C-alpha cells in the first residue's frame, strides 16, 4: 500500500485564463477548492488494479462509487461531484502477450477515462468541470515527473 501523498502545487496546476473586457483584464481560475491538495497512485491489494486518489482541502463528504466503462470505477463526492478516486483494472491494459505497463500509460488511460466521464451526462450526479480540468492538469504534471512516487 502506498501511503505517500504527493503534494499538488496550486500555482502550477491552476494557471489563470486571461481575457480582456472593455479594456479590463479579467482572469478566470479554477476554484482553488476544486484543485486537489495531494494525489497518490497505488496498485490494489491483489495487484489487479491501479488506484489514483486525490485529496482536497474542502473537508469530508460522503462518496459514491460509480462504475464507468472498460472496468473503470470512480469514487465521487456525493455533494460536490469531485473525483476522489479512480480505479483502473489491470485487464484494462491487457495486451496480447504481457502485462507490461508503465506509469505514464496508467496516467494517460486515467486522463482519457476522466475526460470521458466528464462528458457523460448524469441526471443526479453533478459533474465539476473545474475539478476535471484540475485533475487533468495534475495527471499531465505527473506524466512529466519521472520520479513520481509509485509502489
Amino acid at each position, binding site marked *: 500500500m502506498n501511503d505517500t501523498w504527493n503534494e499538488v502545487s*496550486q*500555482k502550477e496546476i*491552476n494557471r*489563470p485564463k486571461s481575457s480582456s*473586457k*472593455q*479594456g*479590463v*483584464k*479579467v*482572469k*478566470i*481560475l*479554477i*476554484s*482553488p*477548492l*476544486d*484543485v486537489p*491538495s495531494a494525489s497518490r497512485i497505488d496498485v490494489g491489494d491483489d495487484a489487479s488494479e491501479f488506484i489514483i486518489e486525490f485529496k482536497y*482541502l*474542502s*473537508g*469530508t*463528504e460522503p462518496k459514491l462509487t460509480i462504475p464507468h466503462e472498460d472496468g473503470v470505477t470512480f469514487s465521487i*463526492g*456525493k*455533494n*460536490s461531484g*469531485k473525483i476522489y478516486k479512480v480505479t483502473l483494472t489491470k485487464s484494462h491494459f491487457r495486451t496480447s502477450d504481457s502485462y507490461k505497463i508503465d506509469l505514464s500509460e496508467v496516467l494517460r488511460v486515467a486522463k482519457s477515462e476522466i475526460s470521458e466521464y466528464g462528458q457523460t451526462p448524469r441526471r443526479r450526479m453533478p459533474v*465539476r*468541470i*473545474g475539478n476535471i480540468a484540475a485533475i487533468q492538469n495534475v495527471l499531465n504534471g505527473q506524466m512529466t515527473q519521472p520520479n513520481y512516487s509509485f509502489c
Partner: protein
Amino acid sequence: MRNNITLRRWLYRLSTITIGVAATSATMLGLVNEVHSTEEPYSTWPITALTVLDALQRYSLPLFIFLAIVIAIAAVIRSFGDPWVWEKLQFILDEYQAKAFHQRCNEPNHHHRVTLFRYKKVCFRSRHCTGTLLKPWGKHSPFSGWLVPALRSGHTSQHTKAIFLAPDNGDEAEGVAGQAWTSKSAVVLNDLPRVRKGGLVRDVRDYAKVTQCPIKMVQQYVTSDRKLPLSIAATPVEVNGKLWGVVVLDSRAADGVSDESVLNYQLTVALIGQLLEKAA
C-alpha cells in the same frame, strides 16, 4: 451582516440554559401529574407542598404549552448558529484582509476589504438596487436566489446592504460575486474604470458591464459619492462539498488584488467552509 456579537453571544447562552431548564421543568411537571395527593405517602406532606402540587396539576396543560413555546423560541435563537463560530470567522476575514493587502497596511481597512457573501434562495429583507420601500427585492422575485453579505473584515463599512442576484439562469447573475457563484470559479478583475461623480457616462456603463452589476447600482454609488473598487476578486466557498457562498476581495487600488490573492489563500477559504459547518 452579523453585527451585535455581544448580544448574540448573550442570547445564545441564554437559549442554551433556557432549553435545559424548560426540558427539566417539563419532565418534573410530568412526574408531578402522576402524584395522587390523597394517597400515602403524599397525604402526610406539609399542607403548603400539597397546595403547590395541586396548583401545578390544575395548571399543567397551560404550563406544558408555555414550556413548549419557550423551548421553540430558544431553539430558533440557537438555529442562528453559535456566535463563537462567527467570531472566529471574523478573525479569519480580518487576517485574510491583513495578509492579502499587507502592502497597503498604512491605508484605511475599508479601502481594501474581504466580504463573505452567503447564497440565499429566498431573500425578503435586503434591498436590491432596483428595489423600493414596498418591494425591496426590486424587479426580481425574492425567490430568485441572492448573494447576501454575511460578514466583512474590519470594523468599518459593516452596514452594507448590497445584494447580488444569483438566479438559476447564470447569465443574469450580478456582480463579480455572481460570476464566481455561477461559474464555480475564481474571478479576478484589475484596472476597473475610474468612475466619479460628474464623470463620463461611458465609464459608468463600462464599469457595470465588466463587473456585471446593474447600471443603476453603479449610478447609486456615483450619485452618493461613494468610491467603487478598482480591483475585485471572488472565489467560491463550500460547506460539506456544497457551494455555500462567495468570498469577495475588493480594493480601491487598481492592482490591489491578483490571482495570488486567491491562490495563496486556498487554506483560508477551506477553513471558512469548515467553520461554516457549525454555523447556521
